[in-house]
């Protein structure tokens, strides 16, 4: 296609459409809605888009698109607030941001971290739009070059990041990732629908949702730990460097930001991977290319810049499969396509021929929305960062409320909360014994891709080989596959070198062996059950993956246990956060604090979520935070009221309890 004769006029047409008062007005409406929704973890773009869809119908197409794009574009920006300030991964796009963003907030540098994150987001978004403008016209053949072997290799590359993120024990990293893969394969098998590890439960049949895993593995363990220490998120109770420093940090790392944005666009463009791994790949890349790696995970600003640059660039890249192939990269993109149809546009190849101006309108609206959204967030970040200086117990009821509500968006039953508690306990112990939690998460996110691509690539390759060895090798060893293999090998090699470079904690310590060993044994038992369950599956193709992974993980676990047997009690393998970390000096114990969260679950089971929440707010604020009745009342009404308002606006329900099955109550008390 003649880029200049076709693309340029289309681009100009799009720009004249975009820069009208009407268009920008609707775009800002979308951005504001997106910000409001995105701040709530777990809700994300789907809820926001569903909210506006009823109004889309009958709107002028360009205005409608502007509103939808504005809304979608700011979700990966606004969810950064929760990731950095509270350690809650707002959506799959901001999970890696938690790793360094939250420690920065704890060091009193929340404003700096937020500013760096938003500047990176802004840059990534613009970068994505620029690249896309040229790329979208020629994208189709390139996207089609990514067949199953290529997708499989990309998945493996994502998994290889485990090596980089494993910390001081590669074995724990491998087991963690396998554990994630196993948990990710719970429920109906993707190929033939055999049930796996669901024990006849309705809830497990559909598997766990990412929200639950992200909240349970990252957010709750951190929140419980802070609650035990009874202080503000910021250690000093104050805000250190301001947002200007963050912007300068980004400028100092501009090349990192460019590289990570490139990664974001590329991964986003490829259909089938989704955005779920892009931030991890970017984070791994950031670590690998950094000279001084000692601060990663403890508050390195680069750990924020990398993933945040990539996740907004990915949104732009993700438009390619969405618009050109009608294959949405995420749930919100799926709803986006639905909205486009309501406006009279269907995704497909014609989007770069007949409808190219519309495509460019979407692309550049995305860029503009990024500017508006990130600018607004940047403006707000200084103020919102003050949350980290508030006494933590005052925040806890709000955090628990947000987390429980977010978890409940998963399947809208009480079991969401139960699952969250169970996963949280796993997360708390993984944190305590320094098992790499990112490894678990990467495994979980990639589970179904890893399984499906392996099986599909294998099956198609075997029929190609039947036609001839040359055809077969052409298929499985394309230039892209070979390139990806090289990248993966180098990445693993670098990762292995790094884990050797990361020194064990300098202070010598004699650990108590048994807690670590017991936890490892519990994991081994779980893996064993998974293996048995997998072996009992009838259909071969549904059995192979979980059985293999569980088998590998079991061997690794046995090796770890062997290691534990042989090594002296001073080995870092026995690391125990209850003795070594700041938790050791915490004034409150683990279980009493966790039982606060449990109480919310039990109360919800009895009275439904809204009543339970009110009781929880009052009890917690009076008994634990020890604030006056007046403040208790204000905070309770404010918190519960805000939640009801949001649920009402978004047409969401609350989990009902036993009470609701006896009596008819009006909404919001009714649940459903």
């Amino acid at each position, binding site marked *: 296609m003649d880029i200049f004769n076709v693309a340029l006029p289309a681009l100009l047409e799009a720009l004249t459409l975009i820069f009208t008062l009407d268009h920008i007005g609707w775009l800002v409406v979308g951005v504001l809605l997106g910000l409001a929704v995105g701040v709530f973890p777990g809700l994300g773009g789907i809820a926001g888009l569903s909210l506006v869809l*009823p109004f889309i119908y009958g709107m002028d197409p360009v205005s409608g698109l502007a509103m939808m794009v504005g809304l979608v574009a700011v979700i990966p920006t606004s969810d950064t607030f929760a990731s950095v300030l509270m350690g809650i991964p707002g959506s799959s796009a901001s999970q890696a941001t938690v790793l360094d963003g939250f420690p920065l907030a704890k060091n009193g540098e929340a404003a700096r971290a937020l500013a760096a994150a938003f500047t990176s987001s802004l840059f990534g978004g613009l970068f994505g739009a620029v690249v896309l403008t040229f790329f979208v016209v020629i994208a189709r053949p390139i996207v*089609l070059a990514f067949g199953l072997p290529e997708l499989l290799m990309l998945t493996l590359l994502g998994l290889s990041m485990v090596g980089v993120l494993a910390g001081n024990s590669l074995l724990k990293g491998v087991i963690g990732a396998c554990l994630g893969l196993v948990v990710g394969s719970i429920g109906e098998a993707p190929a033939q629908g055999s049930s796996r590890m669901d024990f006849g439960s309705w809830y497990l049949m559909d598997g766990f949702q990412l929200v639950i895993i992200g909240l349970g593995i990252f957010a709750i363990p951190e929140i419980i730990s802070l609650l035990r220490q009874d202080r503000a998120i910021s250690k000093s109770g104050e805000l250190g460097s301001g947002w200007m420093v963050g912007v300068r940090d980004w400028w100092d790392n501009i090349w990192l930001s460019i590289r990570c944005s490139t990664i974001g666009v590329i991964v986003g463009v490829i259909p089938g991977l989704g955005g779920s791994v892009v931030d991890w790949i970017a984070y791994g890349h950031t670590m690998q290319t950094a000279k001084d790696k000692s601060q990663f995970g403890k508050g390195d600003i680069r750990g924020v810049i990398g993933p945040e640059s990539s996740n907004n660039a990915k949104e732009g890249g993700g438009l390619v499969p969405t618009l050109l192939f009608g294959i949405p990269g995420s749930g919100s993109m799926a*709803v986006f396509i639905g909205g486009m149809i309501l406006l009279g546009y269907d995704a*497909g*190849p014609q989007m770069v021929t007949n409808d190219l101006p519309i495509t460019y309108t979407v692309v550049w609206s995305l860029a503009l929305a990024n500017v508006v959204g990130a600018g607004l967030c940047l403006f707000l970040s200084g103020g919102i960062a003050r949350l980290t200086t508030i006494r933590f117990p005052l925040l806890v009821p709000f955090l628990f409320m947000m987390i429980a509500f977010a978890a409940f968006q998963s399947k809208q039953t009480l079991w969401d909360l139960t699952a969250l508690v169970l996963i949280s306990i796993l997360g708390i112990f993984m944190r305590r014994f320094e098992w790499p939690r990112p490894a678990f998460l990467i495994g979980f996110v990639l589970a179904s891709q890893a399984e499906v691509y392996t099986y599909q690539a294998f099956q*198609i390759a075997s029929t190609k080989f039947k036609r001839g060895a040359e055809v077969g090798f052409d298929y499985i060893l394309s230039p892209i596959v070979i390139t990806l293999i090289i990248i993966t090998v180098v990445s693993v090699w670098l990762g292995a070198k790094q884990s050797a470079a990361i020194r064990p904690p300098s202070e010598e310590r004699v650990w108590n062996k048994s807690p670590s060993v017991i936890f490892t044994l519990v994991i081994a038992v779980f893996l064993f059950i998974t293996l048995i369950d997998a072996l009992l599956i*009838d*259909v071969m193709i549904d059995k192979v993956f979980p059985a293999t992974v569980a088998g590998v993980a079991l061997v690794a676990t046995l090796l770890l246990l062997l290691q534990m047997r042989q090594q002296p009690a001073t080995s870092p393998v026995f690391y125990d956060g209850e003795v070594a970390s700041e938790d050791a000096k915490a004034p409150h114990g683990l279980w009493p604090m966790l039982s606060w969260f449990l109480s919310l679950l039990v109360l919800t089971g009895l009275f439904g979520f809204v009543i339970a929440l009110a009781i929880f707010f009052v009890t917690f604020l009076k008994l634990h935070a020890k604030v006056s009745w007046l403040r208790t009342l204000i905070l309770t009404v404010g918190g519960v009221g805000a939640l009801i308002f949001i649920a009402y606006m978004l047409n969401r329900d609350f989990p009902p309890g036993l009470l609701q099955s006896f009596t008819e109550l009006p909404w919001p008390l009714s649940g459903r």
Partner: protein
Amino acid sequence: MNNLRRLINKALLGMAVGTLSLGISTSALAETDFTDKTIEWVIPFSEGGGSDKWARFYAPLLSEQLPGKPTVVVKNMPGAGSTKGANWFAERAKNDGLTILGTSGSTQFPFLLGDPRVKFKYSDWPIVLASSTGGVAYLPAELGAKWKEDPKSIMGTNFIFGSQGATRLDLIPLLAWELLGMKVDPVFGIKGRGDGRLMFERGEANIDYQTSSAFLSKVMPLVDEGKAVPIMTWGALDDDSNIVRDPTFPDIPTFKEVYEQVKGEEPSGPAWEAWKAFFIAGFPAQKMVMLPKDTDQEIVDTYSDAFKAVTQQDDFKAKSEKLLGVYEQVTGKKAASFKKLGTEVEPETVAWVKDWLGERYGVKLK
């Protein structure tokens, strides 16, 4: 505890139904009016799927035509391939006309195949709308050219087909191709038909099918470029429930015609009966709107009329063509007959399908 709750729920529901039916005798005469009411349209699938788009397309139109112009909101309740939401509707939805259900082929198939998780009965529910669709199978250019000359010449080809699972809507193409004697290896595990099309475009799969609207917007460009050749549609139902050419694709032969061409005889026997039954459930009666059990006839009629009014609007055809294809949107008696055809299948036919699934794909259905 769950059982206890279910029991309590049932008891409550029973009581509610009891009191309502007492009330109905007096209130039935009153005009149905939904002023200031909110109607929840339960879609047992997640946001962004085909059924979700379908419901969101209809929701504002339905709202305009119902008396009192209530707000119609789409409520997604995904789980267990839509069985969960449909079960919820059967057990919990009140028959006051404020909750309606949209089902699809994926809801009907587990019901037809006797999935033990299914706790609902289609016969309980009054139907107020059925939306038909069709499906088109296509081949890559080279194979397509040979097929055009003589389908029999490529029956021995090793076909690869990206499939969502043998017990899903893909049962229809898989069974059709098998009846023709084609050797098709399904590659399972794709997440939607879009993925299957992508596999085809990448040259990994060499046979595929799409439902009508997706075929029109995403495969037609390939056909125009000479990269794909449509070979058969599944057909459509005429007023007497015979399979005829698909009105959207009048130039493409139906599977039935291709069968006659290849085998030299009309299709018959249990395999054909099974194909036909599941085809009807999967395509002509693919999406249906249901009201809860024992809903007052007045309310049912109100909905029926409202949907009828929607589909008879002047600009409806133009609006719906893009999303739904040029198929009839069926209301009233015809919708009821579609529902009957799509949800009532002879036990022998079901048994045949189950045996076939087990033998051919190792799927054991309880």
